[in-house]
């Protein structure tokens, strides 16, 4: 690793760029499913196989670098899985109760970003510089506008 990439802020950005691109690609599959008119028939099966793909990657990495999970990892990961499923479930319920998609997605995404940023600063005492703050405000606004447009 070069001295430039070993700097924490630069390393963070490289990893987040990878996370951003792969997360976006991961979500695009649902669009392909919808374009093929399979959502009504196979959405659950698609999600199941989507998680299996994720699991295969995890198992492949586990074989390369074996580890034994500890209790706190099992508990925190279970809570994360539950939160992820609950988020999707409640968004689906809201949409089925005549809440418009642009309202549901802009409120849940924009609101979540705001709450997590606030928690980072207040609970975890994170320091966000002027560029970070400007990025946060612009990012939250852009996601809300994208949900509404």
């Amino acid at each position, binding site marked *: 690793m070069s001295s430039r990439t070993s700097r924490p802020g630069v390393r963070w950005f490289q990893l*987040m760029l990878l996370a*951003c691109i792969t997360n976006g690609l991961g979500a695009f599959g649902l669009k392909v499913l919808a374009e093929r008119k399979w959502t009504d028939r196979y959405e659950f099966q698609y999600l199941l*196989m989507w998680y299996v793909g994720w*699991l295969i990657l995890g198992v492949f990495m586990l074989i390369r670098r074996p580890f034994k999970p500890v209790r706190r*990892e099992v508990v925190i990961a279970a809570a994360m899985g539950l939160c992820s499923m609950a988020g999707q479930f409640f968004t689906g319920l809201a949409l089925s109760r005549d809440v418009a998609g642009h309202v549901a997605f802009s*409120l849940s995404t924009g609101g979540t970003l705001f709450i997590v940023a606030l928690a980072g600063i207040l609970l975890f005492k994170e320091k966000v510089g002027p560029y970070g703050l400007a990025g946060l405000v612009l990012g939250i606004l852009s996601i809300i506008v994208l949900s509404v447009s």
Partner: protein
Amino acid sequence: MHAGHLYILLALASYSALGILHKVAEVKSCRALAISLLMCAWSLVFLVMADLAMGKSLHTPVQVVTLALPFGVCAGLAIVALQTALSFGNISTSWLAINLSAGIPTVLSIILYKEAVNTWKLLALVAMAVSMILLWKDGQSRSEHE
């Protein structure tokens, strides 16, 4: 309160808790691969339970399997990268960066499926790109201070 709005608040609470738990995992020195793998395994358990409770079929056509697997691999990679990145940066900006990924399916839909682009959508995509540049600048300035 309208039931739909209550569900939105519950979704908001769930997703916010998820973001905060990513940071809790980092604070508690949980390993990124362990978190990604276990989160996926638990989600699979919850999904299968929900499928069975709703009487849904688990039979999946091969075309759906071949479509879903690579996208699932991408999602798994995203969680490993996010969880690893948290040891180098803030949850506040990391959570934003991962949510900015909403722009990727939007751009791909425009390119591959010729989805209509209006001015607002274009503005949002440009703002997302600028936001990522600001986060990169933030990362650089943090490096210079450390």
